[in-house]
């Protein structure tokens, strides 16, 4: 799963521009699936038969898209202006590398020399509309040859293991869920399942909405990356979750009150099988679960997430031992569900 995740994190897939990620996943799951659809928005829906048929229609879901930028303008002197695709904290993008479009045009988000920054100015963060990307173009014409309005860009693409079993990459949210789903699809399943690799989660769970309408599942399992704020200065109550403490099984976030029954089942399964787990200690964030739970006539919904530091940044961090258990725990739940 680690190697799959590394490959997935490297690929570009800002919200609305998930093609590269979808193409890769399609190739990986094709030999193991019993049916594949790419829908009107670009969601990839994969069905796979299990050992037995079940009246319980099960959907497993992870989003392919990542936060990024979209080019909105080109200055006369060749600098690019941009807007965000998804929730980006503009404090994490200053002086960072950006790769734009299919040709991965390399640019950097510049900032004036520190020598010209006043003490007052230093305390505030430049507004997004004042920021710009430098691709080394000398003029508007040169820039236009390389980049078009509407091109999407993603962050720094190096994927590195470091420290005691940690992974640094962009887009761990939610390629980690995609990697776990690929692993599940490659395995023998206890019952029939549908897997949705969704688009546009980061701009408001847009893809999952139509997946839910199409499938109207009874039970849904969302696989995600979730924010961890486990830094030394942060008080216990604001840490949300901790890297190294295992998978996150949430009872509630900003978008969803998860099925209490599935929460109980899942946490008991984890305990029984010696899988480390924790829950979110702060009601924060949201996932595709919100629209799947309330799509059609509704679905019993639960999530399994990997804790991620610096989540929507070019240098997000996850602990390998945390997320490697994700497909195993999901499989245990599928087995349990298939017994019903």
């Amino acid at each position: 799963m680690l190697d799959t995740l590394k490959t997935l994190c490297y690929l570009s897939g800002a919200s609305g521009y998930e093609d590269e990620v979808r193409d890769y996943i399609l190739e990986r799951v094709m030999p193991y699936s019993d049916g594949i659809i790419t829908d009107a928005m670009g969601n990839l829906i994969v069905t796979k038969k299990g050992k037995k048929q079940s009246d319980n229609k099960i959907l497993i879901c992870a989003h392919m898209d990542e936060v990024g930028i979209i080019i909105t303008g080109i200055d006369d002197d060749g600098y690019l202006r941009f807007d965000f695709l998804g929730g980006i904290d503009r404090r994490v993008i200053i002086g960072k590398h950006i790769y734009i479009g299919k040709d991965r045009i390399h640019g950097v988000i510049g900032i004036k020399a520190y020598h010209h920054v006043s003490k007052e100015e230093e305390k505030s963060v430049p507004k997004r509309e004042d920021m710009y990307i430098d691709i080394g173009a000398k003029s508007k014409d040169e820039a236009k040859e390389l980049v078009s309005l509407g091109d999407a860009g993603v962050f720094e693409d190096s994927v590195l293991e470091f420290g005691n079993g940690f992974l640094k990459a962009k887009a761990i949210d939610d390629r980690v869920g995609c990697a776990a789903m690929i692993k599940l699809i490659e395995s023998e399943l206890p019952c029939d399942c549908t897997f949705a690799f969704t688009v546009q989660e980061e701009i408001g769970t847009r893809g999952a909405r139509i997946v839910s309408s199409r499938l109207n599942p009874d039970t849904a399992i969302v696989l995600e990356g979730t924010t961890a704020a486990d830094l030394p200065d942060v008080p216990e109550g604001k840490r949300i979750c901790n890297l190294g403490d295992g998978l996150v099984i949430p009872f509630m976030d900003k978008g969803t009150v998860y099925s209490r029954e599935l929460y109980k089942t899942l946490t008991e399964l984890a305990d029984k099988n010696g899988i480390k787990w924790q829950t979110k200690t702060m009601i924060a964030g949201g996932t595709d679960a919100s629209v799947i739970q309330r799509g059609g006539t509704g679905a019993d919904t639960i999530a399994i997430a990997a804790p991620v530091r610096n989540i929507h940044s070019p240098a997000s961090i996850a602990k390998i031992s945390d997320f490697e258990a994700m497909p195993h725990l999901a499989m245990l739940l599928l087995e349990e569900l298939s017994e019903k």
Partner: protein
Amino acid sequence: MLLKEMIIDLCGLPAPSGFEEKVFDRVKELLSPFVDEITTDAMGNLIALKKCGKPNAKKLMFDAHMDEIGMIVTGIEKGFLRFSNIGGIDPRMLPAREIKVLTDPPILGVIDTLPPHALSDEDMDKSIDAKKLFIDVGLSEDEAKKRVPLGTPAVFTGGAEELTDNVVCGKSLDDRSCVAIIIKVMEYLSAKDLNVDVYCLISTQEELGTRGAITGTYGINPDYAIALDVTFASTPDSKKSETLEMRKGAAIGIGPNMNRSIANALISTAEEKEIPYQLEVMGGSSGTDGWVIQVCREGVITGVVSLPIKYMHSPVETMDICDAEAIVRLLTEFTVKLDKDFIS
């Protein structure tokens, strides 16, 4: 080696002020074919000499600093590293920044940032005080203490690379670009008949207040000196009045820190040889080693030549090779012409 390749080569090495050994060794290797001797001093400066072989020759000194801005580990809390800056770093470019922690071998660190979830909208508009930031090395308290002793320095990860043709972007172009320029000038001068002995002072600790140049210049005791450093090129968020332009050539310093005689000689060389140049007028300190070189011992006739770069002191400093090439030509031609009559 092409100038561009040499700049990229040197930018790939880490050398925060006070910890410059790696760059010292590489510069020594690159410079040695073109000079007669290379020595050092107590501050760790690299001092190279190319003799002209003529009696009572005057001494010309080129200066550029080998150090870069960086960080130094000052504490460990729950396995995360507290740090202080080495030189001027805008704290706004630190969150979610990748860091090379210079243990042996170096390890990756990431400066962690709090997620928006834990912050108010107001907080999001405010920069984070560097004192509140940590480097995450993915180690437990015990492991971190064992592997990362206090006082371990660190730099931004990566080196430099080309964005588009001849536009080079990366860390420590300040001042490796000028170190490479000096090496290239010495290569060209090695085949020339000169009237001066040429010294190179590749100095240390400039970013902490031009410290290496104080002893380096004292030891060399030059008659003439030219300090080479980077200057500010215009960017969309900077004032035109505070910046020069990229691709307009060598920036020749004018003002009290630069003796007018040497500035005039540089300008006349550029005019005569049709080398692109621009003037950089500075009322007080040039902000370069030139400031301490000029008042060393009984005084040194000092000039400052600068390379315009964008986003100075960031990991994405950006330059155009054409400006660096202009400086190489300017200094080469200047040195060839330099004799008792040229500067008066």
